[in-house]
């Protein structure tokens, strides 16, 4: 891939990016959130079309109109979410795209025996003789499902395999299986592009490392000769200083939220933390580390699954439902804005007043004028760009939708605001505004808890930060911690500190 460029709505996401992988080589692709990794592999695999540049497979220039075309050319993406058919057998999953047939009574029938044999041979070749080709895929472990997925790609004659965080949902033991299979892929001269956040994984299995930053190439390393320090430096660069450069902070008051031994079976393990009024506490973790769970556990969205002690403003609180969390003064902004945040068909005003609808009821009826007045105040306060309170929510930009989701909770009864991935899918300009708003809200006495997989964001806005890894707190930092320090805590890798 050479000179690749792509922009969305006038915003350049990739410019002049290069990436080359040789057969039998594992190329790690690194970059922090928003660096353009996703977009690059989506162009490579035909999900997006490029604006500029060339893509060659085996020296031949190609243009993939859709993912099918990429698959036909031997380029496969293994997305982060495993995509297998759980109710079909291993052999069926592997052979699905090209089922062997035999002559039947007047029409061809699926040749089960040939299919099983073919799949068996493929799995043996990959070194997984232990997987039964007749087993239903849903009965396999997650790692084994991954292997089935890889075998399916090989059955389709894959020449280039793009793996997006293949170990994200796996234990360390299971991750070893994936490394083993990558070894045998190398032996079979498949080119592998390996995307991961885990530095030590990357150093263990890759031959070379390509780093993207802000949609450009930021470094190309030969793994054996590279140090972790220089790779991290290329990945994170200087902190985008102006993004996080604003005044305020440093006036933490009383503890608003205190947890001790907070656990959710299989997700969170004895979390002890506190958030004080007037401060922003950031929690950084990679996907699957527990940052998806922590905020919900405190808020009550997980229901009675949550164990441990939680104090809100000094008194015990059981997070049994979202309604309970709201009643105890917690506001919650979910990561997936479209699915869990906004109500797209309703107006900005209706979205804003929904959590505390009671406040706008006079007698039997809702007072629309009171709602409009409040909505206008919030639009001014947060600088929300909208045609007015009556604009339909779905037509706002991501950043403005997010501000609406924040504004909902700005009533005096809310003491703690929890935000998951507060700037996901938000453009850079609006990001800075959201950070400044969060700071301003904290300065006014709100306790703010931010959960994010964006390490720069957590390092940039937090008064104190925590690092989560596999459900446990593995690092605690004060204001001014560097992104690299947080990242190093999660890779949990003593070698990094030496580098």
């Amino acid at each position: 891939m050479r000179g690749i460029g792509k922009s969305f709505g006038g915003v350049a996401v990739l410019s002049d990016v290069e990436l080359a992988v040789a057969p039998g080589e594992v190329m790690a692709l690194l970059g922090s959130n928003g660096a353009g990794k996703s977009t690059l592999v989506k162009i490579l695999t035909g999900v997006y079309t490029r604006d500029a540049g060339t893509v060659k497979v085996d020296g031949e220039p190609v243009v993939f109109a859709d993912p099918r075309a990429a698959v036909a050319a031997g380029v496969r993406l293994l997305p982060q979410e495993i995509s297998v058919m759980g109710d079909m057998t291993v052999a069926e999953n592997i052979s699905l795209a090209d089922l062997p047939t035999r002559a039947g009574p007047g029409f061809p029938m699926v040749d089960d025996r040939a299919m099983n044999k073919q799949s068996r041979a493929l799995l043996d070749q990959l070194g997984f003789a232990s997987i039964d080709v007749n087993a239903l895929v849903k009965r396999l472990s997650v790692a084994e499902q991954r292997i089935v997925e890889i075998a399916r790609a090989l059955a389709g004659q894959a020449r280039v395999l793009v793996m997006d965080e293949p170990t994200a949902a796996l234990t360390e033991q299971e991750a070893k299986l994936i490394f083993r299979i990558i070894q045998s892929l190398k032996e079979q001269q498949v080119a592998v592009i390996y995307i991961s956040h885990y530095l030590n994984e990357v150093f263990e299995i890759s031959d070379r490392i390509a780093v993207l930053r802000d949609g450009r190439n930021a470094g190309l390393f030969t793994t054996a000769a590279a140090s972790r320090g220089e790779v991290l430096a290329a990945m994170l660069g200087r902190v985008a200083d102006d993004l996080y450069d604003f005044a305020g902070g440093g006036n933490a008051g009383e503890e608003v939220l205190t947890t001790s031994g907070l656990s959710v079976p299989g997700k969170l393990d004895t979390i002890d933390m506190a958030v004080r009024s007037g401060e922003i506490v950031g929690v950084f973790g990679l996907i699957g580390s527990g940052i998806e769970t922590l905020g919900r556990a405190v808020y009550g969205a997980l229901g009675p699954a949550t164990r441990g002690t939680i104090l809100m403003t000094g008194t015990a609180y059981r997070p049994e439902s979202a309604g309970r969390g709201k009643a105890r003064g917690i506001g919650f902004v979910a990561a997936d804005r479209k699915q869990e945040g906004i109500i797209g068909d309703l107006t900005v005003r209706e979205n804003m007043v929904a959590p505390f609808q009671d406040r706008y009821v006079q007698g039997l009826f809702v007072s629309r004028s009171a709602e409009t007045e409040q909505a206008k105040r919030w639009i001014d306060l947060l600088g929300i760009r909208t045609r007015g309170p009556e604009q339909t929510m779905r037509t706002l930009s991501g950043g403005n939708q997010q501000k609406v989701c924040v504004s909902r909770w700005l009533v005096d009864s809310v003491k703690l605001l929890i935000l998951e991935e507060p700037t996901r899918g938000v453009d850079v300009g609006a990001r800075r505004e959201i950070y400044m708003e969060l700071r301003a809200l904290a300065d006014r006495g709100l306790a703010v808890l931010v959960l994010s997989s964006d390490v720069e964001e957590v390092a940039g806005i937090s008064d104190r930060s925590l690092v989560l890894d596999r459900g446990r707190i593995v690092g605690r930092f004060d204001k001014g911690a560097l992104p690299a320090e947080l990242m190093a805590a999660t890779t949990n890798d003593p070698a990094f500190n030496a580098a």
Partner: protein
Amino acid sequence: MTTTTDRPAASPASSRGPFLTFLGRPSSGVVMLLVFYLLLLLVFSLISPFFMTVRNMMAIGSNIAFIGLMAAAGTPLIIAGGLDLSVAAIAGLVGVLIAVLHGDYGWNIWLAAVAAIALGAFVGAVNGLFTTRLRLNPLIVTLGMMSIVSGAALILTGGLTKPLMVPGFNWIGQGRIADIPFPPILMIVVFIALSILLRRTRFGRFVYAVGGNPEASRLIGLPVERVQMALYILSGISGAVAGLMLAAMLGAAAPAAASPHLLTVIAAIILGGTSLYGGRGSVWGTLLAVLILGTLNNGLTLNNVSSFWQDVTKGVVLMLAVSLDQIRTRALGE
């Protein structure tokens, strides 16, 4: 990877054709229905001299009232993400229950009516329990309930039609206020009440929020299940009242009298612009759709079109309406 790149900014409405821009407006559905309704009135009054008469208009009103009642209550339910296929079967059961309690067991007619309405509420509550607590698909739950309820109605009477002639009671179906038949009056009152409920009250806001995005509603602490539960009960009650009115109108209770109208009820709600995916819709759209379907029925009958062809027409209108809803959803930038 966790990044989600910014989606391209929504193109301004002006770059789409004027028709799509119009379709994209939330109010467009009701306006188009009104235009369609007026056209229908015009066409039929040109073809048939009997159509545009006070007498015929009142006949249409009486005929559509019980369908309108069920469609009125079904609208907020579908807006909130629910669905009730058992409502017409409830209407059938309620009619025969009153006839049996009054005729065979000698109950006071009004006591029997109250019991029947309570039964409607109970059936609605069971629907609600299965869909909200067990999180079952409402299509399956209420389809099953439809079968149970219509079976029960047949069991009660052995499949026979029961006479139900009690002057005071029959007034509900046949009486007039200021020379206007009572059934359409009641229907209009119910529509007005539901419109106020949806537009002006806290509960109404919750209905739209819950249907528009149940996950988001749960996460901001709205009583998602309670809202849906209440609407299932309301739908059950509407079925009961519709059945009571139908029996009073006919002077008899037939177990299967109302069931064929289920399609019309659902068709009216969808035709009226309520999204089957929830979150959007209005009772006024439903009312116009009920009028359109009733008028279509009446006008075709006056012109001696066979009822078989009327079914075909109804189906075509419904499919057109659903296609239009899909186009609208896309115009809204889904």
